[in-house]
C-alpha cells in the first residue's frame, strides 16, 4: 500500500482571546500522518495537545494554517460535509468518556450508525459485534452510570469504531483510568489499529503509550519538539524506564 497522508496540517496556529490578552496555544504545527499508523502526541499538560486534537478532529477552527483530512481542506467544508466527516471518517475518544448518559451501551454505539444512515437492525447487529470486540456484549443494556470507568471507555472505543472510520482520535484516553485499566484500553486501541488498519492518533502524557506507538510527536509549548519513529523510540524509552 502506498503511503497516503490521511492527516496533514500546515503551520496551524491557534490563539484564544482572554480579555485584552491573546494566548497563543499552537504556534505553528506542521505534520503529516500516514494511514494505518498508531501515533501518539506527547507533551506535558497545557502544551496544547487537546487544542491540536480539536483542530485535527474538525471540532474547532485554527486561527491560521490548514488542516487536511484525506487531502481535503476541512475549512472548505460546509456544515453538512463537516457533520459527515465527524460521523463517518473520524471516531472520537475522550478522557471523560462522554457517553450519552440516558442511553444504554448498545444505544451509545449505534447512535453514530443511525446518524450515518444505517438501518436499525443492521445497527444493532454491528453494535453487538463491536461490544463483543471490546468484551462488553453482556452489558449492552447497561447505562454508563452502571459501568466502571474502564468499561465506559471500552464502550467509547466501540462507539468510535461504529462507522468504520479511517481515523480514531483519542484525547488522553487513559487519563481518568487506573494503571491496569489504562493499559487494557491501550492494548485495545493497538489491536484495532493492527486488525482494522485504523489510523490512531492519541494525545497523551501516559508513557505506557510509547510501547505501542509507531510514531511519537512530542509537543512543547505549542510547537513540535521532535518526531520519533518506533525504532528510534526504543532507545529513549529505555532512558525513561
Amino acid at each position, binding site marked *: 500500500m502506498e503511503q497516503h497522508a490521511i492527516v496533514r496540517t500546515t503551520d496551524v496556529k491557534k490563539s484564544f482571546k482572554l480579555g485584552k490578552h491573546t494566548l497563543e496555544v499552537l504556534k505553528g504545527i506542521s505534520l503529516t500522518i500516514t494511514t494505518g499508523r498508531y501515533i501518539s502526541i506527547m507533551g506535558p499538560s497545557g502544551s496544547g495537545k487537546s487544542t491540536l486534537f*480539536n483542530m485535527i*478532529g474538525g*471540532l*474547532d477552527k485554527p486561527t491560521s494554517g490548514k488542516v487536511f483530512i484525506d487531502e481535503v481542506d476541512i475549512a472548505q467544508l460546509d*456544515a*453538512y*460535509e463537516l*457533520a*459527515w466527516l*465527524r*460521523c*463517518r471518517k473520524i471516531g*472520537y475518544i*475522550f478522557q471523560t468518556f*462522554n*457517553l*450519552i*448518559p*440516558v*442511553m444504554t451501551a448498545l444505544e451509545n454505539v449505534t*447512535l*453514530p450508525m*443511525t*446518524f*450515518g*444512515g444505517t438501518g*436499525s437492525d443492521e445497527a444493532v447487529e454491528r453494535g453487538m459485534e463491536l461490544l463483543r470486540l471490546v468484551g462488553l456484549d453482556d452489558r449492552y443494556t447497561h447505562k454508563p452510570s452502571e459501568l466502571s470507568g474502564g468499561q465506559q471507555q471500552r464502550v467509547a472505543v466501540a*462507539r468510535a469504531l461504529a462507522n468504520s472510520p479511517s481515523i480514531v482520535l483519542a484525547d488522553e484516553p487513559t487519563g481518568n483510568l487506573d494503571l491496569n485499566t489504562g493499559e487494557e484500553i491501550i492494548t485495545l486501541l493497538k489491536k484495532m489499529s493492527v486488525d482494522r488498519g485504523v489510523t490512531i492518533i492519541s494525545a497523551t502524557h501516559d508513557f505506557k503509550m510509547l510501547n505501542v506507538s509507531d510514531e511519537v510527536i512530542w509537543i512543547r509549548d505549542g510547537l513540535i519538539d521532535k518526531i520519533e519513529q518506533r525504532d528510534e523510540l526504543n532507545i529513549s524509552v529505555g532512558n525513561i524506564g
Partner: protein
Amino acid sequence: MQRLVALPFSKSVEIAYKSIRVRFFRSLITTTSLVLAVAFLCYVQVTTDIANGLLHGTVPGSIDALVGAGYDVAPGSVSIGETAKQQWLVVLSLLVCVVGIVNAQLMAVTERFREIGTMKCLGALDRFILRLFMLEAIMQGFVGSLVGALVGLLAALLSQTLMIGPIIFSSLPIGTLLLTAVKGIGTGCLLSLIGVTYPAITAARMEPVEAMRAE
C-alpha cells in the same frame, strides 16, 4: 456515495421519549408550571361554559340558580362571558408559565451541554439537536396540559356544583367542554414549544468544543 447524515423522525421520537423518561423529575419540574397554567385556563373557561349551558338549557329553575349563584343574568341575555378580571388573570398566568418554562428549559439544556457536544462530534446536525428538544417539549407539553385540562375541568365542575347546585348536570354542554379542553391542551403544547425554542436554538448552534468545555 451520499454524504449526508440523517436522523429518521421515528428515531428522534424514540430518543426524545427515552430522554424524558430517564429524566422524569427534571421533566416534572419543567412541566409543573404548565400544568398549573392550563388547569387555570380550563377552570375559568369551563366555569363559564357550564353557566352558559344552564342559560341556554330548557331545564326549569336554571336562571334562578344562576342568579342565586351571583351571575348577572339580564333578561334576554344570550351568553355569559368571563369577566375582564378573569381574562386578565388567565393571560397573566400563561405569561408567567412561559417564563417558568424558559427558565426551567435553560437549566435543563445547560445540564446537557456535554451531551449535545458529544452528539455533534458523532455527526449530529444543529437541526437534529433542535428537533430532539422540540419533540421533548411537545411530549411534555401534551402530557402536562392533558393533566392540567383534566384538573381544571374537574375543579370547575366541583366548584360550580357547590356554587350553583347539581342542576348544572342537567344541561351540561359536553361538546363545548371537550372543545375547551382540547383548546387548553393545544395552548399548553404551544406554550411548551415557545418556552423551549430559545434555549434549544442556543444549544443547537454551539460548536462541539464549546459545548463540551462548558460545565
